[in-house]
Every structure is written in C-alpha cells, then in structure tokens.
C-alpha cells in the first residue's frame, strides 16, 4: 500500500466500510437477479455520489474534491473487492476526458452533473471486439456524428457519451440518432453496441493530438484499480478457505504445494499493487504517464488472470458453483482484461514506447 495522507486513509476506510456493509457481493447478486440492462442499483450510486466519490478527480470549482487519481483508485479498489456494480469508473474516465479536452463551458456544464451523480457518462472508443484506437471509422460532419461503437461499458445507464471519432473526441448526449443494442457479457454488467446515426456532437477541442491516448491511459489506471481490489479479494478469500478446508485429516493450508503456490500469488499481487499505485500516482504527477499506465494495466491483467484462475482451482469443486462468489470474479476479470488493452496489446505498446 502506498504511503497515504490522512485524508486518503479516511477516504479509503470510509469506502471499505461502506463496501463491506452496504455493498457486499450479495448486492451484486440482487442486481443480477433484477435483470435490468443498466445492471446497477441507482440508489447505491446516488449514495456514492453523495459521499463525493464521483467527484474525486473533479476540481472543487466544478463540484468535486480534486483529490486526484490515487485517491479515486483507493475507493475503486474497495468497490472492486466486493464487485460493486456501478458506473463510477466509467463516469470517472469520462470526467477525465472532459477535464483534459473540454472547454471552460463544457467543464462548467458537465462536471458538476457528473460529480453529483445526476449524469452518468462513459467512454466509447473501440469499434470491434479488441482495443484498437488506430482503427476508428466514426466521423463527424456538420456537428453530426456517425459510426458504430462496440461493447461500451455502462452504456445503458449513461446519458452522455465521450465518443472517439477520426479527428478527436466528441460529447454526444443520449437521444436522437443514438441507439443501443445490449451485449450480454460474462460479467453480467452493462455493455452495449451503439449506433450513432448523425447524432448531435460537440468536440472536445483541448488536450492536443494525444488526447485520446491520454484518456485511454486514465481508463487503464482506473480499471487497474478495480482489478487490484478484485485480485486482493480473491486472494484473501482463497487464503481463508485453505485455512479452513480439511482433507486427509489436515487443513489444506498445511500442504507445502499449496503454500508455495500462495507465496507465488502473494509475490504477484505485491508486484501488481506497486504497478497500479504507481500508475495512479503518475497521472497525479503528470510524469511518465503513458509508460506507467501501460505497466499498471499490463501487470493488473497478468496477475488478476493468474489469481482468478488459481482462486477456482484452490477452492476445488465448490469454486465451480454459482453459489460461491469466486466465479464472479473470474468472469468480471476477463472483461476488464480485454478493456483498454489486452496483455498482448499492452506489451506491444510498452515496446513501442520504449523504442523497440
């Protein structure tokens, strides 16, 4: 755990407390059972916004607390631990795009609404099944945006989309010319393909040529924070289970084969935490962001992949049942691994950033 300020510790403890008491995994089960396409509890999201969590990266002048990405990551990590279904990460990513590229008027219009929870927003970049910001066909002419976006997170709850077109990022409100096709993914959260047919669009003029890349880096570190919480939760749950389950008249934790596997996973988790926290801190400092964000998400992908698989294996048959939570983490893990860059995509990006 990075060394935190007093305010950050309070924030983290508050989030941990709330997630444990108000939003345990049983809440996600309720959301799943309700079967609504938006796939989150609106009252719970309103409570999060009330506590100031959507506004953590938003300046005070626009209704936020300006606590920065490391602080946002602390909250997101705690919510990731309990698989809290909410559009908090999606909206924070969208807010970062408006912060980087928006005009004063755009910031003044949208950021307070995002911070208050009134408006849910999300980033729509990819047009196929893979992260590929270099293959964008969506175009804008005369203020009308046309194109198709695929597998957009939290699309059902969102009323504002930050859309990548050939020549930059645009704000598009849900309404005329915007139609959703639900895509049910294994994590049973909100995803949709979106058809934009001449939808009214307003460009984010600031942020320069690197705007899309910069926003994707922020998406990477914020998603990595959610993944960190998930990895920690699976690790902790698995360790508890190994200390309880008895076979051959021995608790499983006494078997050296399992001890060493857990030691390996602990080392991996330690590496992941270092990389993710450093990625969040890099965004706050503005130094070496692209590289740090790539490392953060690559390590998050690698380690959560391993831990989610071992979580099932070490739980044995019971880990295969829907009654046990560990499978939920596996399913959400793969969706987040594919978001904003798979492992191979990120290694390619790291090599390119390093000049080979």
């Amino acid at each position: 755990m990075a060394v935190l300020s007093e305010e950050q510790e309070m924030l983290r403890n508050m989030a941990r407390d709330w997630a444990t008491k108000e939003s345990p995994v049983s809440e996600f089960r309720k959301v799943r059972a309700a079967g609504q396409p938006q796939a989150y509890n609106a009252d719970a999201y309103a409570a999060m916004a009330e506590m100031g969590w959507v506004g953590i990266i938003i300046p005070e002048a626009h209704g936020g607390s300006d606590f920065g990405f490391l602080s946002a990551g602390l909250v997101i990590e705690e919510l990731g631990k309990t698989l809290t279904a909410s559009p908090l990460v999606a909206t924070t990513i969208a807010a970062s795009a408006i912060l980087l590229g928006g005009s004063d008027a755009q910031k003044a219009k949208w950021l307070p609404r995002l911070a208050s929870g009134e408006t849910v927003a999300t980033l729509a970049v990819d047009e196929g099944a893979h992260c590929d910001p270099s293959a964008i066909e969506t175009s804008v002419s005369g203020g009308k945006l046309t194109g198709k976006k695929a597998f957009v997170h939290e699309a059902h709850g969102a009323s504002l989309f930050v859309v990548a077109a050939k020549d930059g990022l645009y704000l598009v409100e849900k309404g005329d010319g915007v139609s959703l096709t639900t895509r049910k993914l294994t994590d049973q959260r909100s995803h949709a393909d979106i058809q934009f047919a001449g939808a009214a669009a307003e460009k984010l003029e600031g942020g320069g040529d690197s705007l899309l890349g910069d926003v994707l880096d922020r998406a990477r570190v914020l998603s990595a924070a959610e993944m960190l919480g998930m990895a920690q939760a699976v690790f902790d749950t698995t360790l508890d289970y190994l200390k309880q389950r008895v076979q051959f008249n021995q608790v499983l934790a006494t078997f050296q084969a399992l001890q060493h596997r857990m030691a390996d996973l602990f080392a991996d988790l330690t590496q992941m935490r270092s990389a993710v926290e450093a990625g969040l801190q890099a965004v706050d400092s503005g130094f070496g962001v692209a590289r740090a964000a790539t490392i953060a998400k690559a390590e998050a992908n690698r380690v959560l992949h391993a831990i989610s698989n071992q979580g099932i294996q070490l739980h044995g048959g019971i880990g295969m049942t829907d009654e046990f939570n560990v499978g939920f983490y596996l399913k959400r893990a793969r969706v987040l691994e594919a978001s904003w860059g798979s492992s191979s995509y990120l290694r390619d990006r790291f090599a390119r950033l390093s000049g080979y």
Partner: protein
Amino acid sequence: MPTQLESDVQTSEDAFRTEVRQFLATNFPDELKGTGNMMAGLDGPTDENPVQKKWREAVGGRGWGTPTWPKEYGGGGLTKGQARIIEHEFAKVGAYNPIGGMGVMMFGPTLLEYGDERQKLEHIPPICRGEIRWCQGYSEPNAGSDLANLQTFAVDKGDHYLINGQKTWTSGGQWADKCFAIVRTDRSDKHKGISFMLIDMDAPGVEVRPITMISGTSPFCETFFTDVKVPKENLVGKEGQGWTIGKRLLQHERTNISGGGRLAGMMGQSLGDIAKKYCETGGDGALVNKVLRDKIADLEIRWNSFLLTARRAVEESKAQGGVSEISSVLKKVGTKLAQDRSELLIEIRGFQGLGWEGDEFGNDELEDVRGWLFGKAATIYGGSTEVQNNIIAKRVLGMLDHQ
C-alpha cells in the same frame, strides 16, 4: 510555508551538501571516475594501487563509507538524510564508496546490535576504514537450506573453544582476514545448540580451498577447521544464541541481494536497446521478430514493477518504522527476474551471447555469460527460493507448518 524546524533541517542539509562537494573536489581523483569498489565484489583479490588506497583512507577516515553507523565506532554518525546526500553527491561525480564487503553489508550491523562494547570497539572501526575483510561461515555440506543442521563443533576448553568441522560456500574465503561463523556448542538442541563466533582465518588449523564454479570463477571456498583455537572473547552474544543472531544477519543479506545496487546495475541497459544491435529492425525501428519483442516487453514490464516494489518497500518501512512485509518477496522476485533476463539476453545474442573466451567477443558479452551462470546461485544462496516461499507462507500468510 516550511516550519522553523523544517527550515533549520534544510539549512543544515545544504551546508552538509557543500561539505561533501568540497570533500570530493579535494579527495576524489579523476582517474577513479566510474570504476567500482573491488572490496564489494566477490570476484577477486585486490591489489590496491596507491590512488585507490588514498581514496579509501579519505572516505574511511571520516566514516563516510558507513555514514549512519555510530561515530564512537568509526562510523559517520550521520542521519539517513545526510547519508542520502553522500550517496547522491558521490554518484553525481562517478565516485564509488570504497568501504564495502560483507563486513559492511552483514556483519557490522549485526555486531552493532548483538556485540559487547569491547567487540564493537575492536571490530567495527577496521570495517569502517575498509581494512579488514570478513567472510561468512554458515553453510556446511549437510547444512544448506536446512542450515540449523550444522555440525561444526566448538568444545569449551576453559579460556577458549576448540573448533573442528567444515564450512562450504565461504564467499571470498581465500581473501578474507576473519570469518563470522555459526557453530554447534550443544548437540542436544538443534537451534539452541548454536553459537555465533569470530574466527581468524590465519589461525593454525584453518584451511581454505577455492571451489571452481560453472561460471569458471572461484568466488566460493570450502573451509576446513582442524583443532582451531578461538578465544572466549570471540563469542558474540551468549552460548546458544547463535541461531537468533545468525538469522538476523541473514535479513541484512537478503535485503542486499534483492534491493541492492548490484541488481539495479545488472539491469542497466534496456534489453530492447541491446536487441536492436543484434536483431533485425524494421523501418519504424521496431524489432522484426515479434515473438522476441513480446518476450522482452513482458520481462521489462515485470522488472519495472519489481523496481516499483523495491521502492515501495523502502517507503513503507520508513513510514511504519519497521520492515515492511513486502520485503519478504523482494529476494524471490528479484533473483528470478535477473535470471530470466540473462536467459533472454542469450536468446537475443544467439551464439555471440554464449562466448567463453576470445577477442571476437566483447567484454560485455563475456561478462554476461559468466553472469548468467553465476546468477543461477542467486535463487539458492541467502535462503533458496523454496525457503523464501516457506517463510512467506508461514510468517506472512499465516499458513501452518507443513511438517
């Protein structure tokens, strides 16, 4: 606004920085720029030239090679902040710390904690001046990972002990003046029968035989003790306390193996940059072999998060005022990554990366081959990876004993 206290600290640090710079300007000779401290390495005897000697004496005389050790024993008596200033200023002008070796890294800190006043006054100052080389008498042929199984025995003869037995993997034993050793003083208790003693390497009955390693070098030795007399005042702590003291010393060793400058130095140049010299690149400067490129990126990403982990361990220890639990993974992760890197370096260079000797090979190529081979020891010594895994599972994760 800084507080009065903070600004006082700032002023005194600025003054100290000036003092270090003046010291370097006066004492550090240009011809030693960028060279290393031979005493810190394992690979050879040192015939110090007069210039090196003068530099060692200049630094050692002020205790600046061991800056945070107490002044009364020859250390610098400085704060951690001042020690960092010395480190930065030395690095800036390419000056090495001439005070090093096992005395500094392992034995000194342990003796400062467990030694009596007379022992500290006798042994610490020569370490601070870089005059005495220490070696480690720990492992035995039948006591490797199961170190407490050691059998070298010390019989109480009144005013001295009489030692018989064999140690092995004695790093730098052939060049050492003294040996800190753990020996058995009681056969009835595996752990409580161990004591920590200091042995003169030139005492009658001590015989050292270097072991040639797969890397072709002989940094390790077998050390035989036949009726070696050790005065009673060379017992550190109490009889039977050797396991506790010996384990404490290993903590210093592990910190050094994993987080130390050695690994960071080994990882100096980016593998991607090296690969661009040996392998085909396309018009965009990217490696044409995408599989190799992917492997390199994977390793370098993991290496970067290791460096971040090492940094986090330091920051957390500072904030908590104790050893962070992260440090338990540093040795295991760092040594494995260093080995993976050496293997990948061979794949990058092909046969040119497997040279044993000859002018057709560059120095870096030959050194990396020896480093690749010698590096296999890193996951074995200082507590093997398997032992580290046991420690993590039991002490950090609270998994119960497997025995």
